[in-house]
C-alpha cells in the first residue's frame, strides 16, 4: 500500500433516504492528476467533501501517507495540505477579489492589521497565473461574471499551496481559452509535485490532463485505470453502464424548418452589446458561441426582458412585441433558462415540486386555488421525464447533486410550451448520459416547432446541436454560420477575433 499520498478505504455516507457513498475506494499517487468521474448523483462531490472534513463518513477510513486521519473541519484538512475548488461557488459576493482569494489568510502587519498593499500584490501575482488583466484585486466579486468567479475560486484553492488539490468541475462555465490556462497551471504545479483530483463531465478533458481515472456509479466504486490504456467509450460504458453513440442526436429526417418565429432587429444595450440582429425559425436550434464575457447572456436576458434593452426591436411571428419584463416575455411565449442556477435559477430552499411549477402556477389553478394533487402528479411525472435522481419530490432542491439541480431547472423551462426557448449553458455540470437526454429534449422541442436558442461555452455542444451558429465577440455579433460550414477552428477564430484581422 505504500507510495500512495492519499488512500480512501470503504468509505460510506448516508443522507436521509439516500446512500450517497457505499464502500468507495480511491488511491492517489503523489504527483499524478487523478480524474474522478461518474454520473450526476454518483457521489463524487460527497466523496470529496468527506475528504475535506465537511461531511463525516459513516464508515471507512482515510489515510494520508499511510497515516489514518479524521478531519473535524475544512480547516483541519487544509492544514494537512488538502484544498478544494467547490462545485458550487463559495465566494463572498460583497468582498473584493483579493479578500476572497486570501480569505482569512490576508498578510498582516503588526497587531494583526491587514497589509493591504501586500494583499493586493499577492493577488495580482495570483491573477497573472490566468493572465486575467480585466480583474483587479479591489473589484467586488459580485461584479464579476460567473466564469471569472470560477477563476477566482480556483485561484483561492491554488493560493493555499496544497499538497493535494481537488477540482470539482472547475471548468463547468469556462471556455476553451480559460480551460487551457487552467491546464497549463495544473501541469506546472504537477511538476512541482502537487497531486490533483479532477472531476469533470467533459470527458475529453480527462484525456488532456489526467494520468489515472476512478469511476463511480450510484455511490459505488466501479473501477480505476491508467488513462493512456483506455478510450472514451470505456469511460462512458463504466460510468453509465451502456454505450452512448451520437450524443448530440440527429435532426429527424422529415422535420422541416418552418416560418420565422423570433426576429431580433438591432438591439443594443450600453456596455453590453450593440446592434444585434438575427432570427430563429420554427424547429430550428441556433447556437450562440463566444468567449467568456462576449455578451451572449446579456442578449438572452435582454430578449427575455430580464434586463432592459436600450434600442432595437423584437418580432414574434412577424408581430412587433414590447417586452418589458420576463412576465411579458413568458406571455409572448419566450422562455429563458438562467446560466446560474444558484443565483437566479432555482429556489434552493424549496422542494423539487415547487421548483418545477414556479413558472407555470396558472396551470395548476382552479378558480383561485392551487390543486395539490395536480401539482404532485406533475412533479412526479417531471422527475420521471427528466430522470432526476431523488427519493421524492418533497426534497429541498439544495440537497440534490449539481447535475440533478440543473435537470430540474431545464425541465421547468422546457415545459412551459414556449414559442421561443433560450437556454443558457443548458448542460452545466450535467453528466454525459443526462446530456444526451437533454439534447434529445431540445431536439423534441424543436420538432414540435419551437425556436430554440442555445447559449453555451462548450464549443462541441454548440457545434453538435445547432442548425445555425452565431458567434459573438465583445458585445457584437461577428459571424453567422451554417452547421455545415462551422468547425471548431473557424468558430474560435471568429470568437477571438483572429478571423477579422485577416
Amino acid at each position, binding site marked *: 500500500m505504500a507510495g500512495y499520498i492519499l488512500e480512501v478505504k470503504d468509505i460510506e455516507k448516508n443522507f436521509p433516504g439516500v446512500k450517497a457513498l457505499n464502500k468507495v475506494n480511491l488511491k492517489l499517487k503523489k504527483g499524478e492528476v487523478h480524474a474522478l468521474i461518474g454520473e450526476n448523483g454518483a457521489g463524487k462531490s460527497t466523496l470529496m467533501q468527506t475528504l475535506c472534513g465537511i461531511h463525516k463518513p459513516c464508515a471507512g477510513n482515510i489515510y494520508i501517507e499511510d497515516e489514518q486521519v479524521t478531519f473535524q473541519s475544512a480547516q483541519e484538512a487544509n492544514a494537512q495540505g488538502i484544498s478544494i475548488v467547490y462545485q458550487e461557488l463559495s465566494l463572498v459576493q460583497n468582498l473584493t477579489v483579493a479578500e476572497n482569494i486570501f480569505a482569512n489568510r490576508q498578510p498582516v502587519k503588526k497587531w494583526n492589521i491587514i497589509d493591504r498593499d501586500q494583499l493586493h500584490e499577492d493577488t495580482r501575482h495570483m491573477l497573472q497565473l490566468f493572465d486575467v488583466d480585466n480583474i483587479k484585486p479591489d473589484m467586488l466579486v459580485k461584479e464579476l461574471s460567473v466564469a471569472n468567479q470560477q477563476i477566482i475560486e480556483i485561484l483561492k484553492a491554488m493560493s493555499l499551496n496544497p499538497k493535494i488539490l481537488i477540482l470539482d468541475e472547475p471548468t463547468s462555465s469556462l471556455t476553451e481559452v480559460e480551460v487551457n490556462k487552467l491546464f497549463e497551471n495544473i501541469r506546472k504545479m504537477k511538476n512541482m509535485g502537487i497531486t490533483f483530483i479532477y472531476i469533470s463531465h467533459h470527458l475529453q478533458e480527462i484525456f488532456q490532463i489526467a494520468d489515472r481515472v476512478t469511476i463511480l456509479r450510484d455511490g459505488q466504486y466501479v473501477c480505476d485505470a491508467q488513462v493512456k490504456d483506455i478510450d472514451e467509450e470505456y469511460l462512458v460504458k463504466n460510468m453509465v453502464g451502456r454505450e452512448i453513440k451520437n450524443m448530440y442526436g440527429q435532426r429527424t429526417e422529415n422535420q422541416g424548418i418552418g416560418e420565422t418565429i423570433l426576429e431580433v432587429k438591432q438591439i443594443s444595450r450600453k456596455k453590453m452589446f450593440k446592434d444585434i440582429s438575427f432570427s430563429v425559425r420554427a424547429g430550428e436550434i441556433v447556437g450562440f458561441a463566444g468567449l467568456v464575457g462576449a455578451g451572449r447572456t446579456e442578449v438572452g436576458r435582454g430578449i427575455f426582458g430580464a434586463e432592459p434593452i436600450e434600442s432595437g426591436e423584437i418580432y414574434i411571428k412577424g408581430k412587433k412585441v414590447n417586452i418589458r419584463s*420576463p412576465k411579458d416575455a413568458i406571455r409572448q411565449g419566450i422562455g*429563458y433558462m438562467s446560466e446560474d442556477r444558484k443565483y437566479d435559477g432555482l429556489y434552493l430552499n424549496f422542494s423539487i415540486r415547487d421548483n418545477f411549477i414556479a*413558472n407555470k402556477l396558472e396551470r395548476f389553478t382552479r378558480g383561485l386555488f392551487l390543486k395539490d394533487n395536480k401539482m404532485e402528479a406533475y412533479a412526479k411525472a417531471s422527475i420521471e421525464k427528466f430522470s432526476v435522481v431523488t427519493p421524492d419530490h418533497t426534497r429541498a432542491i439544495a440537497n440534490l447533486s449539481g447535475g440533478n439541480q440543473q435537470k430540474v431547472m431545464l425541465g421547468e423551462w422546457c415545459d412551459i410550451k414556449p414559442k421561443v426557448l433560450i437556454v443558457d449553458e443548458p448542460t452545466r455540470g450535467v453528466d454525459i448520459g443526462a446530456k444526451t437526454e437533454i439534447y434529445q429534449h431540445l431536439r423534441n422541442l424543436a420538432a414540435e416547432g419551437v425556436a430554440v436558442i442555445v447559449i453555451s461555452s462548450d464549443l462541441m455542444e454548440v457545434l453538435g446541436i445547432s442548425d445555425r451558429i452565431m458567434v459573438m465577440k465583445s458585445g457584437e455579433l461577428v459571424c453567422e454560420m451554417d452547421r455545415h460550414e462551422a468547425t471548431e477552428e473557424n468558430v474560435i477564430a471568429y470568437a477571438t477575433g483572429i478571423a477579422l484581422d485577416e
Partner: protein
Amino acid sequence: MMEWLRRMTKMREFMIFMIVTTIFVVMSFASPYFLSTANILALLLGLSIETMIAVAMVNLMVSGGFDMSVGSVVAFSGAAVGLLIRSGLPVMVAILIGIMIGSAIGFINGFIVSKLGINPFVTTLASLSIYRGLTLILTKGQNVTGLGSTFKLIGQSKILGIQMPIWYAVIFVIIGDILLRKSRFFRQNYYIGGNEKAAKLSGIDVMKMKILNYVLTGAFAAMAGIVMTSRLGAASVTAGTGLELRVITAVIIGGASLNGGEGTVTGAFLGSLLMALIINSLTLLGVDVYWQTFVIGATLLLAVLIDQYGKIRKERKAFA
C-alpha cells in the same frame, strides 16, 4: 388518517399548537377563572386587533418584506376616522376613507422599499415616526371622543354573544390562511421571498406584488385601528405603540422568518395566541407586574426553545 397525523406533526405550527394547548391545560387547573367563558372571550378580544394585523404581516414577511409602521398606522387611521366622523361625515364613508389612508401609507412604504430600493427597516421606522407625528399634529395631542353610537357598533356589538372584533379576527384568519396557502396569487409571495431574482425570471411581477403586500399591511392596520377605536369608543393618540414588535414576534414564533419564503397565517395566529395567553395567565395568577416583564420574556424564550427542540428531534428521527 395516519398519513394526515404524520403530516400534521411535521408542520411547524404543530409544536406551537402543542405548547399553547399545554398552557391551556395547566392554566385551567391553576386558575378557576381561566376557563370561564368571560375570560376566554376577554382573551380573544384582546388578541383580535393584533391578529388582524398579523394576518397581513405574515403575508408581507413571506415575501421578504417587513413593516415597523403598523402601530402608527393603527393610531393614525383611528384618529383620522374619529375626526372625520366628528366633522359630520357618515360613518361608513369615514371608515372607507380610513382604510384608504392605510392603503395609501402602505403604498408609499412599498414604493420606497421596492421601487427606490431603500432598506425596509429604515423606511418603515421613518414611517412609524411620521404617522405618529401626524396623529399628534392632527389631534393636537388630544384623544378623539364623541364618536356616536353607530360607530361604536362596529367594535362593541355582539353576534351570538361574541363581540365583533373576535369575529373579524376569525374571518381574517380563516380567509387569510386559505388564500396564502392555497391561492395561486398569494403563493407568488413564497417564491419572491425564496429567491427574488428567480421569481422575476419565473414571470412573477415582483415589484407589483411587493407593493401590494405593503398596501395590504397598511389597509389591515387601518382596519385594526378602526375596530380598536370603535371598541374603545375613542381614538387614542398613543394607540398601537410597540404593537409592531409584538406582531412581528408573533409572526416569527409562528414560523415566518425575516429572510422571507416561509410562514403561515395559522402559525401567525398561534404565535399571537401564545403571547396573549402568557400575559393572560400572568394576570390571572396574580404575578407581580415587575415579574411580569421578566416572565413574559422567559416564557417567550422557553416556547421557542421547546419548538426548536421539537424540530431537531424530528430531524434526528428522519436521519435514523
